[in-house]
């Protein structure tokens, strides 16, 4: 099977998922991002790498944070940026995904940043576009959110440079989480020897251990001696079905408090992809505490997205 994300000579063509990318490309993205962290701190926050290029953000599913960071990343690379919230416009008028994409291709877009509620939507669009157009997956259903996974490992690498000597726990709704899947693949590809997932059975996919993780249902056992705690967002709608009995019970068993965090290594860091549900999956004291790196994650997110966009633009030349 051809890897749809790479060109024939192994360069990044689309960023659709972390799975299937070699370690060398992940490292290249992280190293490139490192060089961009300075740009955002300058007085003139721009480099001309994407000058004359048009980046289209197509969000079939609403998002504020991710869309904004992609916009900023593209603008800091001097691209022209168009953002569409299709979730609230043409899709509801019966236009198909491909109709929307074709219209933007006709406007000579060079790069698409897409988010969609269905797993595989980014692959689907990437299969459809011509060879000179690049697709970045900004989240497809439960499948993948590769730039989030990358910014998470970028953050971890900044605080814990020796990835080969880390114990990481991912806590929460793995079943519905594209972030968790991206994190798992990013961590295992970069050589993290122990990745744990901690959740009740209702929030874990069948055969999740086949992804190369160790499964814990007891949070105290799972957090013991870890270097990194990666929290997942719990969507409110998960509370209404039969997945969980209540937010209170979930917080009691799987919410991250100072007490539980004390079981991890003393220098452990805490990440969260945002937006947070304080008091559901994470206690405010932890979210705002000294071990939290949640705000740096947002800052690094821009550098990582700049790195991905600049590498994709380079692949076409």
């Amino acid at each position, binding site marked *: 099977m051809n890897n749809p994300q790479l060109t024939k000579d192994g360069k990044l063509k689309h960023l659709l998922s972390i799975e299937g990318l070699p370690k060398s490309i992940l490292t290249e993205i992280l190293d490139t991002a490192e060089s961009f962290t300075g740009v955002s701190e300058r007085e003139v926050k721009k480099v001309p790498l994407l000058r004359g290029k048009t980046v289209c953000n197509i969000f079939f599913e609403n998002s504020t944070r991710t869309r904004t960071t992609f916009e900023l990343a593209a603008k800091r690379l001097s691209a022209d940026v168009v953002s569409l919230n299709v979730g609230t416009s043409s899709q509801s008028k019966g236009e198909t995904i491909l109709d929307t994409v074709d219209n933007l291709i006709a406007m000579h877009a060079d790069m698409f940043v897409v988010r969609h509620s269905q797993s*595989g939507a980014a692959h*689907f669009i990437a299969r459809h576009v011509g060879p000179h157009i690049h697709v970045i997956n900004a989240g497809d259903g439960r499948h993948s959110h590769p730039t989030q996974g990358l910014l998470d490992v970028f953050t971890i690498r900044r605080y814990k440079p020796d990835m080969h000597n880390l114990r990481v726990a991912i806590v929460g709704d793995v079943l519905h989480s594209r972030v968790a899947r991206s994190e798992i693949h990013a961590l295992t590809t970069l050589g993290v020897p122990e990745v744990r997932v901690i959740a009740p059975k209702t929030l874990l996919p069948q055969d999740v251990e086949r992804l190369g993780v160790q499964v814990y249902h007891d949070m105290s056992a799972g957090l013991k001696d870890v270097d990194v705690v990666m929290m997942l967002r719990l969507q409110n709608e998960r509370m209404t079905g039969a997945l969980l009995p209540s937010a209170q019970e979930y917080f009691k068993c799987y919410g991250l408090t100072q007490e539980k965090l004390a079981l991890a290594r003393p220098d452990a860091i805490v990440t969260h992809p945002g937006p947070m549900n304080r008091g559901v999956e994470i206690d405010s004291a932890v979210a705002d505490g000294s071990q939290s790196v949640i705000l740096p994650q947002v800052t690094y997110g821009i550098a990582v997205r700049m790195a991905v966009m600049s590498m994709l633009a380079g692949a076409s030349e």
Partner: protein
Amino acid sequence: MRIQIKNGRLIDPRNGIDAVLDVYIAAGKVTAVGLAPDGFNANQVIDAAGLVVAPGLVDLSARLREPGFEYKATLESELQAAAAGGVTSLSCPPDTDPVLDEPGLVEMLKHRAKLLSLAHVYPLGALTRQLEGKQLTEMSELTEAGCVGFSHADMPLTDTLVLRRAMQYAATFGFTVWLRPEEAHLAKGGVAHDGEVAARLGLAGIPVSAETIAISTILALMQDTGARVHLCRLSTRVAVDMVRQAKKQGLLLTCDIATNHLHLTEHDIGYFDANCHLKPPLRSQRDRDALHAGLADGTIDAICSDHAPVDDDGKLAPFAESEVGSTGLELLLPLTLKWAQATATPLSAALARIGSIPAGLLGIDAGHLAVGATADVCIFDPEQYWKVERSVLKSQGKNTPFMGLELAGKVRWTLVAGQVVYQA
């Protein structure tokens, strides 16, 4: 019209024939096998040297999309696909629009098929009106109109009291109930096997228990009612075990599997290949191995194409939003041969799975070439490879996971009631 088929290797599983023998056809019937009848004067001689001459294939599940879904396929396009695939008799599920729940609709379908004269069409009637799972259909009248059994297609039948009564009523008249075992709540929203691939791709899963719980229910109701049931398209290892046990206990149970499940697993979904969006979902390697074992020991009776042509737009969507199904009539023979070759199954035994055995399940006189039989014949070259391509497929549906692959087994002639309906 008198036809002589000469020099071919005649394989007629039901009559235990596998030898080079000529077949003589007149007035739509087989008049002699081996030596020519006295004074036989053929209008047409088909030289089948190097080819296999077999009874026309019998497919247990082919959606023809008429009435109601003509944008996906038409009766004519799909019956031409049947002819090109060597399929001369086929059974179609009732989930058309309108649903096949009234005798008039069944008569119309039979009539339209008869005018085309490309294959014999045997509809399965709806088990409940509108397939809504509430009210029984007029099974006796529907049978008079041409239905050979009653099915709930892929629609959920969650009310076990209705299912029990439907089985009781069918059993009253000795009708067979055709059910695809799937517990509706467990399958709801699912699009792939609840396993490793669904976990990786973030697709909603359909657990094995969706199939096995449904089978448990059906088996219990069979015990209650004495109904004869055919389970359509098994997919899991545990299901095969359950059917094996039930058959040992003497229940009137039969079952089939689809060609796709004979060869593919969840891993074939690859990067969200919508052609692998099928029902039941493609399962694990272990499940596929168990299906092979079930065929080998006779637990699984027949192989069907599960033909479900989908228009291109139907597959042009992210995996979960794409339409379910794949075209299959033209692949039934080559995919069965591929299985036979991989498992060293004798050709005759393989052909029985798509000929005489399904004919028996449908209760129709087909799938054999004894003297006096209707001259439905499939003449094919088992060695000739052909590439599955859009331009080659007669079916209006160009959707199959096997697109672009080369398969052995090329149909050269198809005869229906003594008339050549396909030649290549």
